[in-house]
């Protein structure tokens, strides 16, 4: 890939096998701030350096996400299964990890639901509990104890709505997939580390943006794409991978 992001050759649908290249091999490590797993598509960009310019209400909301909340709703064994599931669907295969399940658990504990429930589904908190049980069932007991390939096979079936038996005879898998993924994505992409990874400008209030033209670099929001791995710093022994 060599970081030639003007071409689209790195995108899954443009590749013969339909799968992305490994970011660990092709991207530099993050040099400023953090990204999940330290992938550095924007290696010198840290949205949190802007935090002092945000309005205080927004700043406190966003910065508080850096502290993982304690588990209060899910039982430890449910959390173990679901934590592995969340990391799998987000490809969080290494530290540092966004504590997605803890963020989801906080919403379930506070009953901060989204304002609708499918008629053929239980309430969202119960859906999460049943998904935990359903994943363990199809795993033959313990989803988190399976190897990566087996877990990915289960998720592939889950995403396609093709799980059945046990829990899944009562809980429509495609609906359940859409419910849990809505929570997963809302948690992960609310985290400033994920914003660093994708080069997102963050809250930008009250500063806003002044440059709408292509390839614009905003003052104070210099998300510049990496062009290749750094031969000096991105070596195997240059720190955590």
């Amino acid at each position: 890939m060599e970081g030639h992001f003007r071409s689209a050759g790195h995108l899954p649908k443009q590749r013969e096998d339909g799968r992305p290249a490994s970011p660990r091999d092709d991207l530099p490590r993050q040099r400023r701030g953090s990204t999940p797993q330290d992938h550095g598509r924007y290696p010198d960009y840290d949205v949190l350096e802007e935090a002092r310019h945000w309005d205080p209400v927004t700043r406190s909301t966003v910065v508080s996400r850096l502290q993982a909340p304690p588990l209060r709703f899910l039982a430890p064994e449910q959390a173990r299964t679901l934590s592995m599931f969340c990391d799998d669907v987000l490809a969080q295969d290494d530290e540092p990890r966004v504590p997605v399940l803890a963020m989801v658990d906080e919403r379930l504990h506070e009953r901060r639901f989204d304002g609708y429930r499918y008629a053929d589904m239980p309430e969202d908190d119960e859906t999460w509990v049943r998904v935990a049980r359903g994943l363990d069932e199809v795993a033959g007991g313990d989803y988190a104890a399976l190897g990566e390939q087996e877990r990915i096979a289960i998720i592939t079936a889950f995403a396609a709505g093709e799980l059945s038996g046990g829990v899944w005879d009562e809980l429509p898998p495609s609906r359940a997939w859409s419910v849990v993924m809505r929570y997963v994505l809302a948690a992960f992409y609310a985290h400033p580390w994920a914003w660093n990874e994708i080069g997102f400008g963050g809250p930008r209030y009250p500063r806003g943006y002044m440059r709408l033209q292509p390839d614009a670099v905003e003052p104070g929001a210099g998300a510049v794409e990496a062009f290749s791995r750094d031969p000096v710093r991105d070596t195997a022994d240059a720190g955590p991978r």
Partner: protein
Amino acid sequence: MIRRSLASVAKGAVGPADNDSRYLLDPHRRGVPNVGRMARYADGDLVDLAIVGAGAGGATLAQRLARKGWRVVVLESGPFWDPDRDWVSDEAGAHPIYWTAPRVIGGDDPVELGKNNSGHGVGGSMVHFAGYAPRLHPSDFAVRSRDGVAADWPITYDELRPHYARVEAELPVSGQDWPWGDPHRYTYAAHPISAGAARAKDGARAAGIEMRVGPVAIPSAAFGNRPHCIYRGFCLQGCKVNAKASPLVTHVPDAIEHGAEIRADAHVARVEIDARGRCTGVTYHHGGRERFQRAAAVAIAGYAIETPRLLLNSTSARFPHGLANDHDQVGRYVMVQGAPQVAGRFPELLHMYKAPPPEISSEQFYETDPGRGFARGFSIQTVGPQPIAWAEHVLADGHWGPALREYMRDMNHWFTLGALSELLPVPDNRVTLADETDSHGLRVARMDYTQCDNDRANIAAAKATLHGIWDAADAQDVLTIDRYAHLVGGCRMGARPEESVVDHTHRAWGVPNLYVADGSVMPTQGAANPALTIMALASRLAGLLARKQA
């Protein structure tokens, strides 16, 4: 002709003569300043009108009638927002501005609610609407006569036209001269557009499609004390700037100044009637207590789900199946628009989260085209997803795990177009009551939705057109999501009580002093975002009521 040329000379300077909201705001803080001196009515006061809901319909109606000297109380279920204090410039943090109390969705094609279409608090859903403010077309009012489907309205476009123009000046709406439907101009010039919108515009032109800038309810120049847009892109999360229009900044300040009370955190449970079947007021929950506000008349403006729910929950010996529901019409013909989105990928960085999502649009495919094989049409608009919405888009195209992360890392190279497909009103697409109850002990709404064949054909054609634009723009990759937008219908207006809930004056059949003043009265929806039409309808209703009283 003279009016038209004056408007064009005065671009950017014309403000409404009879709405001072823009001057009643403070340029240095966002909360509504005159709330401290707002009138307060006692529950026992017989007010002229109790309005349920402080959104596009309710707030506009309150402002108009307060100006006519009516004693008006607006009961709003949600809070009285102070954007400085209550809103954050953040996607996940915007959760409180959406209606997130329990609701049930069913049917073959269930409609996701919450942040997609349901607001909460003073300002209603316009607090989180993107900002598009198009008019309906004249043809929308006679769909049954012209196309043999759906229904005709009991009113015509001409009856709404002056109210469209008036509300456009109040929001105000910015945009290029509008060639579609009833051609018209906007008093405020078009905004600058982003790099991605320029890509879309070029692609559309190459595909033979004209797109114009606007119409968007954000002034492009000074407008009283409302600050200029800062192109932050968080329109769907509530405008912390006060640049984007919502009733909180466009009608509530003027309503308060003329004596209306906006009573927030007041959830109306029932509309009460006397032995003669006339409304006597509303029972509501406030501060942990059940209370009753007396009123000479009641107007419900709770939107397409809560308005039918309130009527269905208001049972009595006279109306055992819900108020104004003698003919089983309440809750029927609820509508959403098909809103597929297709994103295109380009070599340069486009930063689609910058600038308001509503930038350019086209109504070239709005009308029925016999060659397409389905009735009515769709419009095309830009949308600017923030990271969570973009992740939902990527997931919908079938990507999770490493592929999801890769498309997310690529976000800055993408731009997104959406369509609004006019879906037809169907009687079994309806709001009913579920068995479960909310925190007030009131039965919650259930909304069932199933597409008809015409709907599916429309959405497919819209999606193909979006793909055609990105093909013509030489997009390097595309990602597609199917979704819905907006909500109208559920208490439609009509010529006969057997097929509607209210008459052409918004008055409920069978209840002489009960009105419905929101988008639920719309018999059809066109392919236009509904906010402007809801405000124009409320504006017209205010004129009818004021004339009647005089």
